[in-house]
Structure formats: C-alpha cells, structure tokens
C-alpha cells in the first residue's frame, strides 16, 4: 500500500525519477495488489455471492499436524508422561511487555490467556500444582507459591500488571531452581516463561544457570512475543522444553494451551514411584466445622482427610495438617487419558468415496450429519483405524481434544459384550 503514494510524493526530486517499471505497464497501486493477491482469499458460493474461503480444512490440517507430532512421540513407544507436574509460570513484566503491537497491549493479552491457561491446566492435570513468578526491573519476584487453586493464582496476577525496567532470565531461572529443588522426586519440574523482552540483563553467566537447571531436571519452555532469541532457544534445547514465538493473539493462545497436556517425562528421571494419596469423603451437607485451610468455620461442602480428619475446602490439595495428598477419583481418571490417547484417525482421500466397491457411510458416526458438502461434493473426512467409523472434521477434533474416547469403538465393544 505504502509504496505507491509515498513514491509519488517523493519522486519529484531531479534524480529520483523511477525509470524502473519492472512489472510492465501496471501502476504502482495495482502492483501492491498483485503482490497480495487478496482476491484469492474470496470465493463465490452457489448463489454467486462472494464470501471468504472456508478455512475449516486449513484449520483442520493444522490441527492434524499437531496431533501427529504429538502422537508420533507418545503412542508409538507408550511414553511415560509426567502426570504430577509442578509448573512455575514466569511472566515477563519488563518494559517490553507494555508494547502495543498486541491490542490493547502485550501484558493485557498475556494476562487474559494466562487465566484461561491456568483453568485449562488444572482441568487437564488435576494432580498438578502451579506457581507464578514475575520479572520486573531486572528482578524476579514470586507472586504465588505452588498451589492447586486456580482462583488464587488468577487473583494474585490480576493485581500486579504494571510493567517497567529490564528483564533478567537468569534471575528468574535461579529463583525457580531454588523453589523446584525442594519438590519430591515423583513430581515433574517445569517452567513456562512468557517472554516479551528481546534481551536479558543478567548479573552473572547465564550458561551456568542453564546447566544448573538441566542438572535439576527442570524442563524450561519459552513462548516469545516478539522474535526468536538465541538464548531462549538454547535454554529450551538444553532442558528439553519447547520454544515458540507467537504471531498474533490467537496464535499465542494456541501456543500457551499446548502446554496444558503433560509433556513426556525426561527419560532418566522417569522412575516409577508409589505415591501415598488420600481420597477424602465429602462431609455431610449442613454440618459445621472449622476448615483447616482458611481457619474459619464453614457450613457444609468440605472434605475430611482420611488420615487426620482435618477438614479442607477443595480438592485436590495437600492436607495442611498431615501433608497427605488429597484427591478424588475423577481427578485420577481425568489424568488417565494422557497415557492412553486414542489413535489419530486416518484421513480418507476424496476419490475413494466415489469408489463403487467401497461401502459408503453417508453420515458422520458421531453427530449423524451428512458427510457431503453442500452441492453433494464429498468433503474431507476421517476414519477411525479400529472401528472403521467415519467422522466429520468437527467430531474428529471434539473426540481427540475433549472426549478422549472413540464413540465407535466404545459402542461396538458394548454390543459385542452384549452378545456374549
């Protein structure tokens, strides 16, 4: 856009005349459009109206690529996963976080998605704990200690969103390393750094700190908001984390949510351990007791620790009296699907639908909608490798991301069981 107008304005100078029409007789303004090819993102529907191209297929292919990369590492070798995670979320509140290339500002966007992330994280990892850290004025500060309550973290974060000063990766890592060193050996130590700045002002040699983190088996991941930095890449490579840079807000959301499912465990660290856990009973409605976590009397809705009979308000948590890990059985069950994910569905090439030998399912096994696109053109669809049920793309995503069960396989198993 800028090319044409600016050139005209400036081209008056005696020597700056542009004698270079590379694209022949196109005008400058036309050329910018030639470059962008904006018309290609439009298509005509049956009634001749223009509408943006349906990017569902594109979106789905992205999703499938992600799924494949996940499953190729996970299912192939039945990789052990860290279900009990201790994650420190480091939020960079340096000067760079107040920049406005994300609207309204980077820090607002970060806060919004951190909130969503924390909720999603506890949803997927009920047995895990999160702590919050901020970097500001070159110093790292602990905002909240490790804990299992999403609300308290979110509240603490929302109160502290001013940005100033430089950023220091080393200070943050040192602090995290100090905290995570005390974690019991069955827990998986992780740091997720949301880094806005493009440099780090460190008091010492950061390479040593990285080696220290590597030794303490802390998995460090970074999401950058501006551009790729060598030191972040190096940190992630050394400690087995992932490094990504957000293109825009939606991409940032995607990236941060990728950290919600548990990562594969670090090999040499993945020793099997028995962990003592308590499954507390829910106290009777209407009974009054003093809860041990808030130190105040409450009516109903609490849990009683099976070992010391102390009362706690919510699960999962650690009993403040005897230190027993308290969970409920649905929490364990929710963590289970990470270990046994359903196999990714195979894509069906469109031409095989026209194959007369092939028995054609016309409707999606999941939602019972027609599998054909408007105009009876065959659309993209997928098939479960086990039960051979056909699914539409929406159901594919829903099954893999939320349901964690294949409806086809389950119903066939039930019907088989019925027969026997």
């Amino acid at each position, binding site marked *: 856009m800028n090319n044409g107008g600016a050139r005209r304005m400036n081209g008056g100078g005696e020597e*700056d005349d542009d*004698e270079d029409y590379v*694209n022949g007789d196109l005008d400058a303004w036309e*050329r910018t459009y030639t470059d962008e090819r904006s018309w290609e993102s439009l298509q005509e529907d049956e009634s001749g109206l223009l509408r943006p191209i349906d990017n569902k297929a594109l979106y789905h292919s992205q999703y499938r690529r992600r799924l494949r990369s996940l499953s190729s590492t996970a299912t192939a070798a039945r990789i052990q996963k860290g279900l009990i995670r201790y994650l420190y979320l480091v939020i960079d509140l340096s000067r760079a976080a107040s920049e406005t290339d994300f609207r309204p500002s980077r820090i607002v966007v970060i806060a919004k998605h951190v909130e969503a992330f924390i909720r999603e994280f506890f949803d997927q990892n009920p047995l895990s704990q999160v702590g919050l850290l901020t970097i500001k004025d070159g110093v790292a500060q602990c905002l909240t200690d490790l804990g299992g309550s999403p609300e308290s973290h979110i509240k603490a974060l929302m109160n502290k969103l001013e940005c100033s000063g430089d950023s220091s990766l080393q200070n943050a890592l040192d602090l995290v390393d100090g905290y995570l060193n005390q974690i019991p050996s069955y827990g998986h130590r992780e740091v997720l750094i949301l880094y806005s700045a493009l440099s780090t002002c460190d008091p010492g040699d950061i390479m040593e700190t990285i080696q220290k983190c590597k030794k303490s088996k802390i998995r460090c991941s970074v999401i950058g908001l501006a*551009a790729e930095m060598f030191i972040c890449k190096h940190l992630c490579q050394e400690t087995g984390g992932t490094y990504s840079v*957000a293109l825009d807000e939606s991409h940032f959301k995607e990236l941060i949510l990728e950290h919600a499912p548990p990562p594969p465990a670090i090999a040499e660290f993945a020793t099997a351990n028995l962990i003592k856990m308590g499954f507390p009973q829910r106290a009777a409605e209407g009974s009054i007791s003093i809860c041990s976590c808030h130190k105040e009397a409450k009516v109903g809705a609490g849990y009683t620790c099976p070992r010391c009979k102390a009362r706690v308000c919510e699960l999962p948590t650690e009993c403040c009296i005897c230190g027993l890990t308290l969970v409920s059985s649905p929490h364990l069950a929710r963590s289970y699907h990470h270990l046994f994910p359903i196999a990714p569905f195979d894509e069906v090439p469109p031409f095989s639908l026209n194959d007369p030998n092939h028995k054609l399912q016309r409707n999606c096994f999941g939602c019972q909608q027609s599998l054909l696109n408007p105009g009876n053109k065959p659309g993209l669809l997928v098939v479960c490798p086990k039960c051979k049920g056909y699914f539409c793309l929406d159901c594919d995503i829903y099954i893999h991301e939320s349901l964690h069960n294949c409806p086809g396989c389950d119903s066939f198993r039930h019907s088989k069981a019925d027969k026997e």
Partner: protein
Amino acid sequence: MKFQIEDVTVYFPYDHIYPEQYSYMIELKRALDAKGHCLLEMPTGTGKTIALLSLITSYSLSKPQSPIKLIYCTRTVHEMEKTLAELKLLHNYQIKHLGPQARILAIGLSSRKNLCVNPTVLAAENRDSVDAGCRKLTASWVRAMAAENPNVPTCQFFENYEKAASAAVLPPGVYTLQDLRAFGKEKGWCPYFLARHMVQFANVVVYSYQYLLDPKVAGIISKEMQKESVVVFDEAHNIDNVCIEALSVSVRRQTLEGATRNLNRISQEIDRFKATDASRLRSEYNRLVEGLALRGNLPITDTWLSNPALPDDILKEAVPGNIRRAEHFLHVLRRLVQYLRGRLETDNVEKESPVGFVASISSHAGIDQKTLKFCYDRLHSLMLTLEITDTDEFLHIQTICDFATLIGTYARGFSIIIEPFDERMPHIPDPVLQLSCHDASLAIKPVFDRFQSVVITSGTLSPIDLYPRLLNFHPVVSRSFTMSLTRDCICPMVLTRGSDQLPVSTKFDMRSDPGVVRNYGKLLLEMVSVVPDGIVCFFVSYSYMDGIINTWNDSGILKEIMQHKLVFIETQDVVETTLALDNYRRACDCGRGAVFFSVARGKVAEGIDFDRHYGRLVIMFGVPFQYTLSKILLARLEYLRDTFQIKEGDFLTFDALRQAAQCVGRVIRSKADYGMMIFADKRYSRHDKRSKLPSWILSHLRDANLNLSTDMALHIAREFLRKMAQPYDKTGGSDRKTLLSQEDLEKMGDGSVHEMLY
C-alpha cells in the same frame, strides 16, 4: 549420492543436493568440456565449494586417460582449511564407492609461518621473520658450514627431509595444514619443503591467491604446474584488486631510510668479503658476464622471492656491464635512493607516467632503463653471494629494487603518484610515492594463458559482464544462480526516508546534515528495540563512522541504544577489533544483544561471518563509494575509460555495490539461517544502483520494500521476525523442491531440471 551429468558420474558426499548446486555443476562441466574459462555467481550458503570439488574430482576420475589437476585458490588460511576439510569428506566418500582407484593426493600450501614445525623458528612473530629464521638454518652455505663445524645450528627436520631425498613423499590422501604438520612431526621431515615438493605431484592443491597472481611468489611456487589444470578462484569478487596490488609498490620515507641502512650493511659485507674471500665476488662477476641464469640451479632453500615482473616480460639477457661489480651496483642503488628521496620532498601532488619517470631518473641520477630492469635480479644475486640469511632485515631495499624493476619493465597500465600528505589529514606530512598498477588483466593474464580452465566464482559477481572486461578474458560460461529457498529467509529493504519523511543519504552534500544523522540514529534506535541478538551496521568510511557516532553520543541516541544492546566498534587496530568481535559474540550468545559498528571495505566486511543470531539484521548506512578524490583511483578510472571503455560512473557504482552486497551478505551463511538487510540511502532506490546488486538479493527485494521510511521498515521487521521464528519444513513443499535426492535427479532428465530452475 551419485548421479550422472552427461558422461560424468558425479560423487556427492551428501544424500541431498540443492537444485542450484546441480545446475552449477552442469555449467561447470560444460566449461571443463570446452576447456575454457568461466565465471559463476552463486550465493554463499548454497554449498559452492563442495559442488566445485565434487564435480572437478569426479570429472577427473571419469577421464583417467587425461587427468586434470585442480588448483584451488582461497583468500585466507581459514577458508583453505575449510575447503580441505570438505575435500576430505568427499574423498572418503569416493573411496567408499570406487575403492583405491579414487585415491588422490590433495595438499594445502601456505607460508612457513603456518607450516613450520621447528619450535625455535616458530617463535618469531611475523611471516618475514619466520622465513628468515628458516633460511638461517637451512641455507645451502649454512649447511655446508655445519657439515664442517657441528656447532652451527641447522634444522633437523630439514636435514631429515634431505636425507630421505626421493623417498620423502606423501602417501595419497587429503592433507590439511594441520595434517601436514602432524605428518612432518611424526616422520621428522620438514612439512613446508615436503609440501612444496609435493605440489608438483598432487591432484589437488589448495593455496592462497598470491601463489598464482603475485609474480614474486608464483615464480617459485607455481612455475611447474601442468597446463591441464583447472584453476579455481573462490570468493573472487575482489580479484581485480588482488591483481593490482600484486603489481603495485609504494615507497615511504621509512622505506628509504631502511634502504639506506641496508645499503650500508651490504657495503660492510662487501668489504669483509673483499678482505677474506675476494674470489667469491670475482666468481660472481664472471658468472654475470657469462649471463648465467640466476634461478633454476639453486637449491630449494636458497630461492628467495622471485622477480616482481611477469615471467613473459623478463628479459633473458645478461646483466648489463655497469652493475656487474658489486660496488658499482651499490652506487647505482644509492643514487636511486637519493633520487627518490629528492622526489619525496615535494609540496604538490605529482602524477607521472613510468616512461617520464624513467627519463627523469636517467637524466638526474644517470641510471638507464635497462639497468633499472635488472635491479631485482642483481640484488638477489648479490645477497646470495654475500650469504645473507636474515632476509627480513632487507625488505626495504628489496622494495626499492621491486620498484625499479617494475618501472623499468612496464610502460603502460601504470602510473607514479607522489603525494606529500594524506588528503584527509593535510597537516601531517607523510610523503608517499606510489607505483600503482591500473590494469588488473596484467597480473592474471599468465594464469589465463597457461591453464586450461580458470573458474572465477563468488557470491557477489554482479554485474557479471563487467569482470571479463576488467580482467580482459573471454569466458565460455558466465552465469548467475539464485538461491532456492524453502522460505523467504532474507528480507532486503531499501530505506529512503526517516520517520519525518526527509530523505536520508550519505551523499557528500547531505552527509553532515544533522537531520540525516538524526534519522540514521533513530533508525538504529528503533531497530535495536525490535531485533533480537546481533545487529551489524556498516558505514562508508572510518571518518564518517567516527563523526556520526560522536554526534549520536552528544545527542544521547547512543545511550538509548545501549539500553537495548551493547555497542562494539571496529577500529583500524586488528587486535582491538578481534577483541571487540569476541565480546560481541559473547553478548549475542548470552542474550544481552549487541550492535557492531563496522566499515565497508574493512577487515570485518570482507572476512567475518555474522551468521545465525550473530547477525539478524545488517544496516548499510549509505553507499560505500570509494574515496573519489584519491589520485590513484582517478588515474585508474582514466585508464579504464581509455583502455576498456568502462565509464567512470559505471565502475564506481559497480565497485560500491559489490562492497555493499558483500557487507549485507555477511548475515546469510546457510539456508536455515535468516536475516534482514536494510540499505539506508535514497540512492539505492534508483534503478542504476539497485540493478547492480546480485540477483539473489534482487529477487527478494519486493517492490513494496523499495521506498520505505523508518516506521514502515520497523513494521516489516516485526512481521518478518515473527514469521521466521516459526518452525518450518526443511525439504520444502511439493511445489518448491529445494532439496533433491538421488531418485529425484534420476527421475527428471536434464530437460525438466532446466524447466524447474529457470
């Protein structure tokens, strides 16, 4: 992988090949078939070296009846080692596939400083003193003396090498300089002389440009190379300057003073010999009367640098009578030095042709042209007779003799310029007399004439039609290749205006304008806040860089820049610059981020890579034109116009743009890398300037990026950096193949490759 190019089976040590490497090989093969010279431009980072090596060695393997020798010239020792390492890889691969018949001998050759293994000699700090130290131990008369008197020190490595005589050979294989030293140490043989000896038998020789182009060195090293050789000049974009320097001499006051000292010393030696061993001087005289050739029958250790004139121009005649006697020759030299000293005492810039200068010498100092011509040979002979070994002390008189021989030999293509002071510092008298060569084709002509094929290749040879004119040869192939990229990993931009929409330029009348300086400062300031890790800035000259940095410092811009990144500056001191570079790299590594200020045409711009995070952005402030008021440049321009019909403007722009391209090319060293390039000068948007950039930059310079202001550039930079940080597929999509496997190559015949590439 292994594939067929026409009738040659090419062995390539990697599983995949870039399409441009493949087409590079095809062109190269055609040139070899035609036994002609060629000119090939291909961007760095595309594997030029391995493509060259694997094609040429495979070519010679497939035609065993007429084996060709490969002479590979590099600019630096570092590049030499890299080339040999690649060759080693290739060689192992070929042996694996072909067995012992693929064995070749490949060696690197460098100066004694890089090859010597004698600890006492190596202790000397510079090249000339190492050479002299070696001569002190190995000269034939020293060894003769040692044979009688065991207390005279000799080099035991050289003695062992001599003892082994014809048995001292290198078994086939690829030897880097380090391998040579290790081999020498193990066997107890001198690696330098072993390498010099083996050069004649080796299939591949890797050495520096000078060994072929500088007649002083080429005369002793490369004399016996066979005609069936392929000569490769790698990174040859500055080859014309190398050629010119090889034939240029400059004389300063210090040179003359040193020469006088040398002459006194020589005259003492002569007196000493007269007293003790007068027969030696007499026998030398007799030899000169008979007109015996000086070279040829000397032992290998006694050869000194040979004649500075090109072999064809040296007269095969006896030394003229008036300088046959040592004392007479000394008188001639004294008169010459005296004359030159007189010429240096001038207040004006003087420019003369060699013919006029010789005439003036002959009338004032009474030395005729023929005598001048023989100065060099005569000095050489005298030094041998006097058994002088500390040759590093005698460099001054040697320079004077070089000068005399050159002006005696050449009448065209040279001029003599005397400047009483440096134009930029008119208060400090620093007279210098320069014999400058204007014609690059002189020095390279013997190379073109002697060898079957000469390959000139580099990342920046644009515009490619100018080189044949400058070097005066006819290439059978001249092609420029672009880079096939999996993603658009370079982002060139032309920035013409600051944020305030005022044009920026380093044009002479604008460069000191405070608005321009401020806009440049603002540009850098904005960029340091959005670009991670390293940024490199190139300025047009040291003085301009000093000026602009001072202004930035005064206005506080520099301080603001330092908040984001550390600042390092190249200086004329090599040690200081090395230190700065080292710290710059450390700052990039540890995430602090850094800016490096450097100068186009400086050491950094020529030889240092800023790949990966060491250079995410390079800003070229201004167009790096040469200092156009320099007398030497003016004389050269005039000569180019008269002789080759190259317009002054064309040459200057060509030279400036190749330097600019060289500077910005520092950031991309491989395809996995990415980087931005900002040309910050309004003159770059003009077609005549821009079109001289290499095609691999031009093809990425979109029209929309041709006329940017600072804020627009900033926006583009942000977008670009985000895009590049995303993971990508290394092999490229199905529509844009950027890596070809063996099957791909077999599948497509020649035709389809061509369709795909062009």
